[in-house]
């Protein structure tokens, strides 16, 4: 009796020993993706869930319709990081800004190989190349723009854009647009400024006040800078104002026209220019996700005297998250994050808003990069 129980116990112990011993290395033991893509490509940056570290990169060939998900992980067995935010291609290298990992990953765009990184940022958002030895990296919390050297992959300096108030993290920097020797950047988070940096001296030289929370910008063929403001958050001490589209003359830096959105719940985002630089595209939505009438994709010609009244593509029960326009074909890329915890959809439309293709990308497709 006693002996049998003892044997039983030994058996259970052995079972447990055999069933256990998990090793993470097994997760990296897979056939890596080996490819060579030199043709036209669209890269979809999927930001993933905040604090999950599940950002990913999707490759799409618009000619063949070929889709490859998770290309960075499948090639390198390394996760991209937490909240991949934007991507820029320079020569054969892609620079992927991973916001909440404080770094920029550098990847070969042809074979998706991880070739290096630039680390040490606070909360990086976008990268803008100025020359082969200089690029700017905007930042949500650093109150400065980092100057980097893409050759040495080091941070070489910081441009102080702090407004020296302790309120609301001012100033943040988001998108950057180069205009001659100057760089325009929008201060979105609890802010209402377009900052102007002199790229020769790397100094903040001017600022333009716009409607609250400018979240995106675009420059048209007439050298007019268009700024889309979401108006801020309801209930915040910073205050909620009407969302607005602002036209600024890039030379004189004067606000020429402000188009106010009529609906007080509107919080549009994703301002993008078509290849001819004569039409503005943006997503019209509300913070309260789809609870606004006539949500969707809107188009407005740069010469229009008022905001468009109807969407060219209605959101319906989808959740449009990001917008991109292919600078060569003019095709419209719209992402639908669905429920935010599954692989989102990307819908591809022609310039005339005819659906051409759709695909499943990664979790929360948030940015498009065209080659």
């Amino acid at each position, binding site marked *: 009796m006693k002996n049998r129980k003892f044997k039983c116990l030994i058996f259970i112990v052995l079972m*447990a020993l055999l069933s256990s011993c*998990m090793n993470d290395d097994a997760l990296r033991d897979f056939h890596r993706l080996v490819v060579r893509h030199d043709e036209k490509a669209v890269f979809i940056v999927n930001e993933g869930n905040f604090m999950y570290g599940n950002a990913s990169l999707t490759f799409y060939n618009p000619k063949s319709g070929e889709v490859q998900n998770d290309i960075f992980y499948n090639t390198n067995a390394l996760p991209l990081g937490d909240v991949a935010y934007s991507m820029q291609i320079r020569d054969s290298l892609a620079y992927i800004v991973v916001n*909440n990992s404080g770094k920029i990953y550098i990847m070969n765009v042809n074979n998706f190989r991880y070739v290096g990184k630039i680390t040490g940022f606070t*909360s990086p958002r976008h990268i803008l190349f100025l020359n082969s030895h200089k690029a700017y990296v905007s930042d949500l919390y650093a109150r400065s723009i980092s100057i980097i050297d893409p050759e040495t992959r080091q941070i070489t300096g910081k441009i102080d854009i702090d407004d020296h108030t302790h309120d609301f993290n001012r100033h943040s920097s988001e998108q950057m647009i180069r205009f001659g020797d100057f760089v325009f950047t929008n201060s979105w988070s609890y802010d209402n400024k377009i900052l102007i940096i002199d790229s020769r001296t790397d100094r903040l030289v001017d600022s333009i006040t716009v409607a609250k929370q400018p979240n995106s910008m675009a420059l048209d063929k007439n050298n007019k800078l268009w700024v889309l403001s979401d108006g801020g958050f*309801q209930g915040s001490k910073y205050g909620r104002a009407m969302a607005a589209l602002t036209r600024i003359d890039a030379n004189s830096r004067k606000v020429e026209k402000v188009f106010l959105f009529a609906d007080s719940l509107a919080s549009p985002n994703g301002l993008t220019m078509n290849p001819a630089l004569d039409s503005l595209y943006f997503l019209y939505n509300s913070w309260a996700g789809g609870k606004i009438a006539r949500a969707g994709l809107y188009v407005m010609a740069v010469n229009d005297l008022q905001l468009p009244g109807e969407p060219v593509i209605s959101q319906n029960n989808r959740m449009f998250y990001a917008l991109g326009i292919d600078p060569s074909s003019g095709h419209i890329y719209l992402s639908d994050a669905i429920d935010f915890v599954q692989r989102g959809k990307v819908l591809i439309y022609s310039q005339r808003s005819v659906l051409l293709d759709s695909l499943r990308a990664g979790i929360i497709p948030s940015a498009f990069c065209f080659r």
Partner: protein
Amino acid sequence: MRRHAQIRGKWLAGRWLYCVRNDDGLHYPVNFHITISKTYFWYLLFKNWNVNLTLFFLFLSTVAFPQMLPDTLSIPEVEIHTAKKLKTAGLQVEKVDSLVMMREADVSLSDLLNAHSTVFIKSEGRGALATASFRGTDASHTAVYWNGISLNSPMLGQVDFSQIPVYLMNSISLHPGASSIVDGSGSLGGSILLNTALNWKKQLGIKVMSAYGSYRTFNNYLNISAGTARFQSSTQVYSNRSKNDFPFYNKNIADIDPVTGAYIYPLQKNKFANYQLSGVMQSFAFRFKKQYLLQLHYWFQNSSRSLPRLNTYEGDDYANRSRQHSLAHRAVLHLIRFGKKSRLEWNAGLVAENMDYRVQNLILGKDYYNAVYSVSKSLSSYNKIIYRYQLSGRTLLKVAYDFNFYHVNTLDSVSQNGYNRFRRNHRVFFSWQQQFGTRLSTSVILRKEWVNGFSIPLIPYFGFDWSVDKKKQWLLHGNIARNYHYPDMNDLYWQPGGNPDLKPEEGLASELGMKFIPDWKKVGFQAGLTAFYQDIRNWILWMPSPMGYWTPENIRHVIARGFDAHVQLNVQINKVSVLLKAGYSFTKSQNDGNAGRWGTDAIGKQIPYVPVHSGNFMADVRWKGFNLSWVNNDYSERFTTSTNENSLRDWLYPYFMNNLYVGKKVRWKRSSLRVQLKIYNLFNEDYRSVLGRPMPGRNYLLVLTYKL
């Protein structure tokens, strides 16, 4: 899932969930009111407990106490609450075994439940936020009560189980599913009852526990109890801290070797993960006029912890530094009047919590600026009157009225978002327990609740127990209840994003089970199998929109079904006592469609972070004061996506965790000393609880327990 969303929302807009204060100065009430003689020794002991209990431990065991002790041996403990003759029928109670409580006295409630129950613990890492969910529901569907008052945050509706040390509690019981209706409403998943009970020993009792472990972990605990047959006092003081800087190979980042091109994975430490937790709990019990029992409990806790960054972080080392700090005062007054056939109870509680959470960045190499600095203050008052009347030996009636009041004031001084709101909550309760014949008993419970004038629909419960055989070894039990969970205050008022139009979450819970408790000689045995079905509609989820704005909506409809099984065996063979205990839970918690927008691909899929299989096993062998315990707990894979698609990158693969405890107890006169070595993660396995956070490899804890 829903809470993650909420947590994220907080991160972006600056929220309270993780809170910090920068100065590490700890302030405690200076005078502990104790009833035993206040010698200089006591004074010293109390004054310096915070500094180092260890010295006192040694001191106590060798010098001071043998002379000071009363000459009686311990008297068997008498529970204050006498066992109920009529129990609520259909009630499923999973009481944590007293041996488990003893073995795991030095851990947090999250670690205990993780290893010994089928409740799913989602832990953000060692010492970090840990939440619990029953049977495929959400963490906010788990109610926790300490001596009758709720420990759930009125803001988030959930409890951080890493912040509850097991040694403070004398008993821990779980009420899964509909069984939670006896404790309160809103707990769609289940409830957990924590009790600090006093004994009626007429002598001084001292317990000192010191634990030293890997990663500079120090846990110190002191309990002094004393009293008479009419009056008892128990004082518990404690302090846990850990640097928590375990090493790990970070394979989520890599440098490239310039020559070979091979990846070099850095060997890192779990930086910025230190925690400390300290506090005091004072309990008094008075018996007077033969029929009155008054208990008072006061619990103060000070907790501070740093929140590590994800293992993919390669940003500025002086940026994204976050700390959370919380202070909590909790007091309970519990008065019971025992009548011949009736019992009247009055329970009043007050909870004041102050939490702050801060994320700091060093800006331009000069100053630290807060990216988030959120301060949340909450005051909760709980008042309950319960009257029970035993109509006959077969009928028991109970009525109760609750009035709870909450005030939350939260503000992020960076974004200047916050809210300042009150909530008044009235509840009435009626219960009828009826015995039919000798083998069948039933219970009917009705609850009605109003929140700030909003009338929540009637909450009914029906349960039965039926002894299948005459010897009453086989028991068939079942219950069914409708339950509602009113949105928590953050759901309604959070700025920005709170949605005041939210409806209560609506749950239907039922179960049917069989228990076998045979009357075997020399062998204690029990086994149970329970099948459950739960249906939750209007499940609240926090949904993001572009640029990091989150808002909650009544979206999900979830059907959870499955079964729990457990078996326990106590046997004594010669001088060897053996306890074998195992539990297994099968949980299919599926998305059954969503109101409005939602991809159809998620329908029919397992809810994120709910494992289908979870199991635990414990073997404990005792012989002549030696003990050897093996604790094992297992989880099948958890999904992080609603569609259950996983890549290797974000796969929360199954894990089988094993801990081994070896101990020896020595008695010396009236005192005893137990030395226990605990080996956690015995096989040094890699495992993941959530994405992006490393878990420690094999680690050790040496626990010394001195008892008088």
